[in-house]
């Protein structure tokens, strides 16, 4: 079913790069008349250029009820879901406030908006939790085995719970939940990309998680399509294929630093308290258990296949080449040098043998 695109779209979370890029992309679409960005924070100057075409309302989700009705919002794209606590914005407390309470208020407002025709919510594959008993590949119907340890994963479960409630109360509004794999790409800046950008990547000793990524540009394409077209339901959004963590580290030309699981958590916790990184239990669980999802439903419904995990990762490596030490070119040179060396030594040995044999009577 393809209906006319919504005329007024409200995008939340435009002070973050992904929200801003979604808003900019929708604003550039001539089929959409008005794109309004809703965010309690002022977008950083770097994103101002993107948001030139977007009307901004500086308010949090509590103000959404009035805003949605005043604007006559026809579609709401909820991007104000943050995956890691931001020390400058109040840490974990504020993250939970924004993710859980913010979503609750936003969905309440959306429910009260009479002209609403579409709801798109950013979710994550963290919704599947992490456990060694899990099936290797998650489909959209897989239930998590236990409440995950990671704060982001728990928030995601709460958010999806609120969306289920919204679907029950407003069955006339098609709600799209997009479970994104970790973002990657030349322009992506997430906890994981920061981890892979360093020369040494900490990994968990004795574990080699299977990772999947989605390219940011493909994520934007899927978001755009779910606003313009009608795709109700929950979809996994990830690049096909898998990279093992060790393989990803090698492809990036980085050096893996395997730490025992306990030490890994402790080191990351120390880094977190020093404000160096924001790597939480979510990342620990990802690095221990890995996470692979089935994207058949997305490909069939949207008629669009994101580029593969390996391609998306290659794009990321190309943009972050300066931290790599073991590049493919250097390895190839080393291989050639060793091979030539061995050949030379063997040739000399053969010559000597021949000359010795010749001297013998």
């Amino acid at each position, binding site marked *: 079913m393809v209906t006319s695109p919504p005329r007024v779209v409200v995008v939340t979370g435009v002070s973050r790069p992904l929200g801003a890029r979604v808003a900019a992309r929708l604003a550039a679409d001539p089929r959409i008349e008005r794109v309004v960005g809703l965010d309690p924070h002022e977008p950083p100057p770097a994103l101002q250029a993107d948001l030139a075409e977007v009307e901004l309302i500086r308010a949090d989700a509590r103000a959404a009820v009035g805003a949605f009705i005043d604007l006559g919002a026809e579609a709401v794209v909820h991007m104000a879901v943050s995956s890691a606590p931001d020390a400058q914005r109040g840490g974990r407390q504020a993250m939970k406030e924004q993710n859980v309470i913010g979503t609750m208020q936003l969905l309440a407002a959306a429910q009260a908006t009479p002209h609403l025709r579409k709801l798109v919510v950013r979710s994550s594959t963290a919704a599947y939790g992490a456990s060694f008993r899990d*099936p290797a590949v998650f489909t959209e119907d897989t239930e998590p085995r236990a409440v995950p340890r990671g704060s982001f994963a728990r928030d995601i479960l709460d958010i999806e719970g609120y969306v289920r409630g919204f679907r029950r109360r407003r069955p006339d509004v098609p709600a799209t939940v997009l479970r994104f794999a970790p973002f990657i790409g030349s322009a992506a800046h997430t906890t994981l990309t920061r981890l892979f950008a360093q020369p040494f990547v900490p990994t968990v000793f004795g574990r080699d998680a299977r990772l999947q990524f989605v390219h940011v540009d493909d994520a934007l394409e899927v978001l755009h399509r779910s606003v313009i077209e009608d795709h109700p339901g929950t979809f996994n959004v990830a690049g096909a294929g898998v990279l093992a963590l060790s*393989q990803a580290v090698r492809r990036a030309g980085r050096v893996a630093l395997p730490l025992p699981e306990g030490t890994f958590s402790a080191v990351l916790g120390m880094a977190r308290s020093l404000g160096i990184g924001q790597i939480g239990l979510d990342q620990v669980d990802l690095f221990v258990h*890995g996470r692979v999802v089935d994207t058949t439903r997305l490909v069939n419904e949207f008629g669009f296949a994101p580029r593969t995990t390996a391609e998306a990762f290659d794009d990321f490596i190309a943009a972050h080449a300066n931290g790599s030490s073991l590049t493919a070119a250097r390895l190839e040179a080393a291989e050639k040098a060793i091979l030539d060396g061995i050949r030379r030594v063997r040739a000399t040995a053969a010559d000597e043998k021949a000359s010795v044999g010749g001297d013998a009577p």
Partner: protein
Amino acid sequence: MSQHEYRDMLPGHADFTLPKPATPARVNGRRPIPEVPQMNGHADEPPPEPTKPDEQAGPIDVWDQRVAAGLAFLRRRLAGTYAVDDFGFDPELTDAVFHPLLRVLYHDWFRTEVFGIEHVPADGGGLVVGNHSGTLALDALMLSVAIRDQHPAERHLRLLGADLVFRVPFMSELARKSGATVACNPDAERLMSSGQLVGVFPEGFKGIGKRFADRYKLQRFGRGGFVSAALRTGTPIVPVAIVGAEEIYPILADIKPLARLLGVPYFPVTPTFPWLGPLGLVPLPSKWLIQFCPPIPTAHLTDHADDPMVVYNLADQVRETIQATLLELLEKRPDPFGL
């Protein structure tokens, strides 16, 4: 004649026949094997001229090729340019590292013989169901080597393992890289519907942890989850009987409190373990026979995947087939440690 074919011709093989004179094909770099069997001191045919290497290309330098191939392999591994499937299976690593190591056990230690390999489907999905024994799941590994080496299509067996395997660091990654995954219906069905050959041991820990006195007595088959997975995907079930694994680590006693303390299903006491320490981990060199049975088609039963009666009966049929085949094989092998 390859070393493996030659080995099969030696007396001690259950199907031993006098070797026929074979046309020799000299493989460069092979250990010299008697090309023409010199029975009773005379050959049937004069040995033919050894084939000369191509004059233009010069003599092929085997060692140079080996070194180059080895370095290229190392470079590919270090650069990460290899493919891993959704389950974490790394075919290159499995073929280049795991299987050559297991092959030593398979050929030289256990002298494994395989019968009925033609019953394993050459393409498409298949569910290989075997009896489990041997304290450590070596039988699963030997089965995957058998199918990889003996089957004309050189298929990889995708094993389904207990969650304990995937809880332990290192072991979990070795298992995943060699193609195994957690024994659960979603994974089994995904593998089978994508045309893979899946190996499962429904006895689980009840099978490998049983006492030596109970050897070759099949244990309970659980709820028959493997049957419903096969029914749902219409995959043929190939029962397989493995003889030999029971004798590698004969369990004389099981120290239950110690097992509970360590969080493992059993703590075995064998003639060598734990008395000899790590030396007790060396398996006894029993003679192994592996017999594949004719496949049981399930495509016509796809609608009955949730019918407990159908599932139970089919599981029972598989169990009976394996048990009967085990007894047959045991008669073929009177001495567990014979050649």
